[in-house]
């Protein structure tokens, strides 16, 4: 298919991108890696009047160690997250999730910021940054603001970014040595997760265990019922049984809602069991 006509603008800087967004309002879309937007354009599911290409803003491709957190530029590609020694050491869940996105071609082009701003409820990176309690940085005409990952995902394919804002950085709290688990069922290797679970923390540890779900509603979700049950000292099996509480999973070509609820319970239980297993650093299953 051929996209509907659009105007193409290449932004030379973040400021220019923001200015173009402000100028064209909702008619404009940012183009980064293009692996979600271009298919949507070709299917004419999206028909923006203006495409603002930020894909060459190499100053936004970085991973920086800032003491208590890693600052990751929004244009950092999935393949670079996979290979970054800093990410592997301090946010291994993100490195792992990045390695599950699509296929190698997608990972070579797709960007962290693009994936998060696309706000797909089944995206591996979205649920990972939610579980890690990341902070997202947006730049708009009025300057920068920080948005907690928990507040960033508003609805299916809708983020908290205003029409004239651009996601520029993701701040990942350092989690070296903190147990984590990522459990995922997908149809094929390259597919979106049908359901995925990201869990971080140790039962009985200093910080409470965080459990996040992908594919269980219009946005990536925290499994609050599970987290509360664990905080209240419930055993894993009991806590996991509430994994789908408060969720509204879709029924689509991938799976029915009832099956997704079942998967959430199984995968949360497995994730929690895996957190408790020594050496409990990076146990996963797909």
């Amino acid at each position, binding site marked *: *298919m*051929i996209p*509907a*006509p659009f105007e193409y603008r290449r932004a030379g800087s973040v400021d220019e991108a923001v200015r173009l967004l402000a100028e064209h309002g909702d008619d404009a879309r940012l183009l980064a890696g293009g692996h979600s937007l271009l*298919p949507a354009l*070709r*299917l*004419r599911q999206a028909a923006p009047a203006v495409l603002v290409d930020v894909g060459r803003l190499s100053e936004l491709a970085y991973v920086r160690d800032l003491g208590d957190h890693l600052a990751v530029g929004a244009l950092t590609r999935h393949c670079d997250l996979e290979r970054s020694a800093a990410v592997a050491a301090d946010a291994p869940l993100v490195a792992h999730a990045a390695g599950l996105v699509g*296929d190698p071609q997608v990972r070579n082009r797709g960007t962290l910021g693009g994936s998060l701003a696309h706000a797909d409820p089944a995206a591996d990176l979205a649920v990972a940054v939610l579980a890690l309690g990341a902070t997202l940085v947006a730049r708009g005409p009025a300057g920068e603001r920080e948005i907690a990952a928990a507040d960033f995902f508003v609805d299916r394919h809708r983020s908290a970014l205003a029409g004239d804002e651009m996601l520029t950085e993701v701040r990942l709290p350092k989690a070296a040595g903190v147990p984590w688990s990522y459990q995922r*069922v997908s*149809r*094929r*290797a*390259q*597919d979106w997760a*049908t359901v995925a679970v990201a869990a971080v923390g140790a039962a009985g540890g200093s910080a409470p265990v965080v459990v996040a779900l992908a594919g269980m509603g219009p946005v990536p979700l925290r499994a609050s019922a599970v987290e509360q049950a664990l905080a209240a000292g419930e055993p894993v099996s009991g806590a996991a049984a509430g994994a789908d509480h408060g969720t509204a999973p879709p029924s689509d*070509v991938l*799976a*029915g809602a009832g*099956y997704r609820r*079942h*998967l959430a319970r*199984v*995968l949360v239980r497995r994730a929690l069991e895996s957190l408790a297993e020594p050496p409990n650093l990076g146990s996963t299953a797909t």
Partner: protein
Amino acid sequence: MTLLGRRVLRTEDQRFLTGRASYVDDVRAPELEGAAHVAFVRSPVASGRILDIDAGAARSMPGVVAVLTAAEVDLPPEPPVDERVHQGMARPYLAGRLVRFVGEPVAVVVAGDRATAADAAAGVAVAYEPLPAVVDVEQAAGDGVLVHAGAGTNTAARFEAGGGDGEVGGDAEELFAGCEVVVRRRLVNQRVAACPLEPRSVAAGWGDDGRLHVWSSTQTPQASRAVIETALGLPAGTVHLVAPDVGGGFGPKIGLHREDVLVCWLARTLRRPVRWTEGRTENMAAMGHGRAQVQTVTIGGRRDGTILAYRLDVLQDAGAYPRDGAILPELTGAMAAGVYDIPRVHFRARSVVTNTMSTTSYRGAGRPEATAALERAVDLFAAGAGLDPAEVRRRNLVPAGAFPHTTAVGTTYDTGDYAGALDRVLDAAGYGELRAEQARRRQAGDVVALGLGVSCYVEVTAGLRAGQETATVIVRPDGGVVVLTGTSPHGQGHATAWATIAAERLGIGPERVEVVSGDTDRVPVGGGTSGSRSLQLGGTAVHEACGRLVDAARARAGELLGAPADQVVLDGAAGRFSVGGAGGDGPTWADVAGAAGPDGLQAEAVFRAPTPTYPFGAHLAVVEVDTETGQVTLRRMVTVDDAGRVLNPLLAEGQRHGGIAQGVGQALWEEMAYDGDGVPLTADLASYAMPTAGDLPAFELVAMETPTPVNPLGAKGIGESGAIGSTPAVQNAVVDALAHLGVDHVDLPCTPERVWRAIVTARDAV
């Protein structure tokens, strides 16, 4: 040293892999200078009345040449080609009053460039009055909603084969008399999409020679040319059709589509060249789908595992307008008895129209459906008798000494060693150890269950009836060779294979052999490539033409040497002729060809096979099933695919690899799904789950060659085998993994959710 049976590397690949192939969309020719581009406006409703088409805005867009609807196209609707199909189900070129599936073309836009054509097509406003649609084939069979009201029925065709004692129509009681175990089951062989990398593409323009020159991504250039001439009422020979490089076919590119003919019609009507290349979604919604059968199997026999009777009832979904999918059940019926010596077999089929895309040939085309039904049935029977499924198979196989063998449905197989194939696969896989491992896991209560699935198959290649193919071989005065073949490759490697055959027979290096196909001026007669026909028919024709060429060359060399032809010998290694094989510096091929004249020396052959051939094999799949999530992981795929004598193992293995991948895809992931209103849900490669390398293990291919006497090469077809054996092997493996949980069947594709539901249903039934 012979080239036959060697892994000669593909000469095509450097061009393909370095982007120098030329597909239809790449073709630049004088006849296509200034070509306009076509886009189709397609129905978004599965069944409806067209109330109004407003093309005003589209027509007034800059760059738009024409927007045409059914009223302006003077091509009469086409009734089904096969006379056994209901003739009241004709297919219009553009829908006029009624639309019958989502994706049916209702208007055609022609514009100066492709983007404008797409924009204008999006700007054509069509008003529909929705009518009741029937999407499900079992519902359609009840005739409650008619797809073609004028036909008075949804049944497009019926087929029957076999019966008690070979008589058609034996009743069930008689068929299963004396059976101690009888199992009956409804099976779904789901609708799938072929997904060739190159979608449909056609370009057409009139030349100064007064002929219509057409480039088409087709498997059958000569037949496609005839279709255009007939549809446009042009005298034979008016159309020159070229199939350039073709990026995959898998069946749906046999013959031409209505869009292709319309593009040719536009080139005539608009008096300018026109071209069309469809998009992926268009391809997946509207090219044609494969499989789509609902089957009911009944199988019976003795407790010792002897199968006595088998019945297969098929409901074939033909889609809205019957095409070759409607007649494929004939092939299903012909192969219904499979590799087994079953005394009583009865096959019945109905092809039924629905408000969906037409079904067409797809890799195996009717034969995978037969194998899938029977191999699932044998596992069900083995479970019913409490016996090992591999053992039940071995007990019932047609013995190696019994060929030619005529089955209870009247099909005569040429050669086979079915037990040999099964044993090789079981040995290579380590069947006994795998069973022991399965038992260990069950004993330990392992959440991840191990499953083994076996399938034995036989198929028919080169058509159900005897086929033929042509070849012309020319040696030029410079000593180079041109092979003109009536086959038409789209990935198979004919340029390599036919050059090998010619080189072997002529004693001229394969690098000096040019293979020409797909151009109806240079090869006016040919059957194209489909149904695993090419090597056994087209390759044999090349082989025979080369034999005649050697004879002609010996006569010519005899004149040069002053000796009678029967004393002249070709030294293949030296490429020289001599009297009585004396060697020395006798005339070379170039000398002989030059002596024959400026065009060189030429010979032709038409090879007519007395019968089809029957390749066979055995597949074993090993899967792991996560019994909590239903997730299936294919761990191993061990196969024997015996296609007679193998010309080039590299090419044959390539065919097996692709076939296995597609067959596994059908077993685990692929499904062309429609919602209840007839809207396709999986018309793109994000929603349609075609497997990639990341989903498949390395295949373990076991060699076996049982030649056929049907052709001098001893070759059978290999193109479809992988897709035939693998689907039921994987499906049987999934069910086998869950047998201890009470699961006895999971329908295709065995998605995680379907597997999980089967586990839950079995648990709840206890």
